């Protein structure tokens, strides 16, 4: 455990020094500030106003930005370190491979999740200072969803880093993965598939295995419990899971995907050449 935390701590310090982390923090903090300054809390959508409205928008924006940010920064820094010879030196030190790999993942997770969470806290603090009601249920659930999404894409990112031998290949693969998942959101390909009479079971199955779609549907649950926005697919989801069941699924499933991807990455990392 000592080696694991040592590696995690090293990665945290490395991230704090990195430019990507500054940009990442500024982007998520900036979104909240921007939403406040644009007076989003004053507007109303589907009966939502105040902080709830802001959090809804923030979470939708996070879905667009967080996965690609996590994927690209993870694969860039890890594959970049390998390519530049950093691994050659650091892996010649007596650190167990498990501690190295999972420590790096733990450190990186903290650095990926913390700015997103802090931005949520900033929103709550700002709202409280302005005398708004704090929607704690929404806050807790959305924090859980963000945690789950961050872990999912971090796991995928580290898997890509374990396979790809160069930064270019890793970045390309990360981008293709993100684009594929993005295309299979209900708004884009799924809609077309249903229009083209693809069996609805196939469309729903795709929606349920795509962690981005699971996250998106999960975020809808609190303000649209009947999933009216989703159309007929909502019946399948609600019949099988129920509202609470799906909310739990939306929290757990991306975590499972992330853990599975990270575990496969670990097996590949151990099995092959380390550098």
């Amino acid at each position: 455990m000592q080696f694991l935390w040592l590696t995690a701590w090293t990665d945290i310090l490395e991230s704090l020094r990195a430019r990507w982390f500054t940009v990442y923090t500024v982007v998520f903090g900036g979104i909240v500030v921007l939403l406040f300054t644009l007076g989003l809390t004053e507007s109303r959508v589907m009966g939502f106003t105040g902080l709830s409205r802001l959090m809804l928008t923030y979470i939708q924006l996070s879905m667009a930005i967080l996965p690609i940010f996590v994927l690209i920064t993870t694969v860039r820094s890890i594959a970049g370190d390998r390519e530049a010879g950093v691994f050659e030196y650091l892996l010649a030190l007596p650190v167990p491979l498990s501690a190295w790999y999972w420590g790096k993942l733990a450190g990186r997770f903290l650095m990926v999740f913390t700015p997103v969470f802090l931005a949520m806290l900033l929103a709550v603090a700002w709202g409280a200072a302005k005398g708004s009601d704090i929607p704690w249920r929404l806050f807790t659930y959305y924090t859980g969803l963000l945690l789950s999404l961050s872990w999912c894409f971090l796991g995928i990112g580290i898997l890509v880093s374990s396979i790809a031998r160069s930064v270019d290949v890793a970045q390309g693969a990360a981008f293709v993965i993100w684009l594929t998942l993005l295309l299979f959101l209900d708004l884009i390909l799924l809609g077309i598939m249903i229009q083209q009479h693809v069996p609805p079971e196939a469309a729903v199955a795709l929606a349920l295995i795509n962690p981005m779609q699971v996250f998106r549907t999960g975020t809808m649950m609190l303000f649209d419990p009947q999933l009216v926005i989703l159309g007929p697919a909502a019946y399948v989801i609600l019949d099988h899971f129920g509202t609470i069941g799906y909310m739990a699924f939306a929290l757990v499933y991306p975590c499972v995907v992330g853990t599975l991807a990270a575990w496969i990455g670990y097996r590949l990392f151990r099995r092959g050449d380390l550098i």
Partner: protein
Amino acid sequence: MIEIRRLRKRLGRRDILLGLDLDIGRGQRVALIGSNGAGKTTLIRCLLGEYRCDGEIRLVGRDPRQFRTEVLRHVGFVPQLPPPLKMPVGQLVNYVASVCHTPAQRIVDVAARLGFEAERFRHQAFVRLSGGQKQKLLIAAALGRDADVLILDEPAANLDPEARGTFFELLAERQRDAVMLISSHRLDEVAALVNRVIELDQGKVVLDDRVADSVDLTSRLHCEVRLTRPEGAFAKAVGAWGFSDVDQGLHWRGSVAGADRLRFLGMLSRYAALIASLELREAPETTSQPRERANG
């Protein structure tokens, strides 16, 4: 200490190592030489457990891949190219010290002997140090702990003559208990350090020779050089070796680490036409090696 049997490694479609067999025992200082692509770096990476390979490798009796942590505790490694680590010097020293279970101060002390004040550069990113400073710190990290297998890839390439002298002394302190594998493109860079030479070519051992262990790693040679005329370029070159001008650029005096004599003579050879006389003499306080003298 190092046993290698039928070691093969393939990278992509290319066979890099073609069935190596080697035994390297305690006290042996091995020059691993060969041209680019000969397989030196691949062999080192296999020894460090960084590459998966066919055949058998044992370091201190164990497979470095299977018993990585236990094996690497015995290994001090200096890479050919310093890694572009962004972490500050202080953090790097502490990290190496923590994972190797050695006091950070020990690494700092070795770095100080090599002429690098790690405390002064504590907050500076490793990657921002000069080539020589990086090399000194990496050597300090490798030698500032109880490593009995030293794997050094072109370790002295970026060091100034004074630091090289100290580096040789540091190696001399370990020469009985440790095994040293010193990789280089050129034999003359490491010839004076070793008692065995292994040359690789196209993934095979083409030369495995024991050499006379006649150079004392701690010895120093007093040196006097007289020139036929003063020359600015020579003054600069010999100044880098710490020589002082005794007579208006015509007579130079200084000392050279015994193990560095070949490199020093290589430098002098560039000015052979200028040299009127050259005297190299073992410093009496270190050893009683025979006197070498050359006149030009």
